[in-house]
């Protein structure tokens, strides 16, 4: 393997996209992903690509729509509020079956939130986010090295299935530095196979190509959607990726993705050294979600604990996969706080001992709220003020 170079996550990602053959980037600045457009602004020029600082996130995603229509490996990046703005364009690209790469370096939300790393956009990323019935391939790196190497995988999957792909990172991954080595040689986009569907100059040797997200004739849209669903089915069957550590004999399996999985791994190591059988399951593809494997693991472990920097979003998929066979608990760090390994370890022990320490439970919160000010007979509540 090549010598590791110290790189910032955002820069490793941008360089990784260039190496993967990305030759069009449009974006609009937002912390904590600013190094991505900054890097692209000079690097695209070096490789003969194009960089546009768009006038808005909405403009940027629609520029990607145009570039991707020509078969160019095109990319945009932003952070949570900016990605919300892009949803219309993402929905249109999903409808037009356009491969592209969208990067979300998540920050705190909702609204403007804050600029620290968070994981509050899982549902938005995996359930569409824009209007209509569609999916994105969603990859969740947990290191600078994966941030740098995933753009290639994202473009390849996107092109194979003609679907937009998203890399869902967070502010910590984007801002941190680690040793980076690329596991692939730079790709010259001229050497990539031609895309027969792409728009461009037609010398008469082919028929008319059209890129469009609508089908107005009766029954046409249904046909388009069902055709797309076939590809979704293939993706769910063939493209699931995950990592497992110490799951074979684990009593409690922590399920965590992205940066949270690293705190979870530290917790697993600490617990194992105390003789507690904990394991880690890390989804790498958030869609397709590794439901099948989680269902298998639910047969051998006693419980699962989701560790998320949100009020619990991925846990919905884990609960669906385990189908009520085992309890699924939550350790939650909303508001862009970094998960603490020691707390996760305590949460695992709580799961094993039937305690509540560091387990997040809405029923407990409701009880707490009742005891403070939200009881119907409480005057403050009657006046419509929530504290």
């Amino acid at each position, binding site marked *: 393997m090549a010598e*590791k170079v*110290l790189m910032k996550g955002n820069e490793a990602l941008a360089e990784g996209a260039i190496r993967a053959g990305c030759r069009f980037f449009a974006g609009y600045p937002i*912390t*904590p992903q600013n190094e991505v457009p900054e890097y692209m602004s000079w690097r695209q020029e070096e490789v003969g690509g194009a960089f546009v600082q768009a006038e808005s996130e909405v403009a940027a995603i629609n520029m990607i729509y145009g570039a991707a229509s020509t078969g160019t490996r095109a990319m945009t990046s932003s952070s949570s509020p900016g990605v919300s703005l892009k949803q219309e364009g993402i929905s249109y690209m999903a409808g037009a079956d356009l491969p592209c790469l969208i990067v979300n370096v998540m920050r705190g939300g909702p609204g403007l939130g804050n*600029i*620290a790393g968070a994981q509050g956009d899982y549902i938005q990323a995996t359930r569409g986010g824009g209007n209509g019935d569609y999916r994105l391939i969603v990859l969740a790196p947990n290191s600078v090295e994966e941030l740098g190497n995933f753009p290639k995988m994202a473009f390849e999957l996107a092109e194979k299935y003609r679907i937009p792909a998203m890399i869902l990172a967070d502010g*910590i991954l984007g*801002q*941190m*530095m*680690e*040793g980076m080595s690329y596991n692939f040689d730079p790709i010259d986009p001229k050497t990539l196979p031609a895309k027969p569907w792409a728009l461009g100059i037609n010398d008469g040797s082919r028929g008319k190509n059209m890129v469009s997200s609508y089908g107005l004739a009766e029954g046409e849209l249904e046909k388009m959607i069902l055709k797309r669903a076939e590809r979704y089915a293939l993706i769910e069957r063939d493209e699931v990726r995950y990592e497992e550590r110490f799951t074979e004999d684990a009593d409690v399996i922590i399920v965590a993705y992205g940066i949270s999985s*690293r*705190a979870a*791994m*530290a917790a697993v*190591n600490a617990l194992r050294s105390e003789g507690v059988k904990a394991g880690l399951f890390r989804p790498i593809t958030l869609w397709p979600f590794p439901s099948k494997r989680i269902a298998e693991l639910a047969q051998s472990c006693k419980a699962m604990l989701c560790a998320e920097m949100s009020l619990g979003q991925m846990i919905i998929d884990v609960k669906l996969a385990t189908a009520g066979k085992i309890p699924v608990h939550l350790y939650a760090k909303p508001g862009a706080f*970094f998960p*603490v*390994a020691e707390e996760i370890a305590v949460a695992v022990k709580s799961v094993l001992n039937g305690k509540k320490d560091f387990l997040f439970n809405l029923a407990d919160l409701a009880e707490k709220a009742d005891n403070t000010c939200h009881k119907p007979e409480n005057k403050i509540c009657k006046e419509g003020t929530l504290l």
Partner: protein
Amino acid sequence: MYQGVRIAGFGGQGVVSAGVLLAQAGLVEDKAVSWFPSYGPEMRGGTANCSVVISDTEVATPVVCAPDTAIVMNEPSLPKFEPMLKSGGLLIINSSLIKSKPTRTDIKVIYVPCNEIAEEVGSLRTSTMVALGAFAGNTGAVSLDAIENAMKKVFKRAKPEMIALNRKALEAGAKLKAE
């Protein structure tokens, strides 16, 4: 070996760059490393800090909440980072600028008059390098050679005489031992 480090000081003292140097030095010695900056809103003259981890095994969390070592370069950083230190941890204090004393008794403390030493060495701008030298000399987490090597990688356009000057600052810091 695992060293979680926090380096803190005024913006402009080079604490964030010093963190990059430490991480790069660890990488030079084939360690697993991470570096994470504070990037919140700050005013001019405000404080900056970063987390660095140097480890024999993979780095779990890049955000160092309980440092093995805290290097504090200005007064406001002392009350912020002293309480975070692990019990038995090392506190490196820039005594040129910090007049308060730490209150904890379960930690090791080194007072390094970084600014004075830096001026003796030849430039006040090397004061944070003096502190890095004290870190390397007392923890052994990275060697001075590795830091010098890292300087050449991180500051690619640095002139040889600047590298030599910074090396002198590192060596001066490395001589100071914990009380």
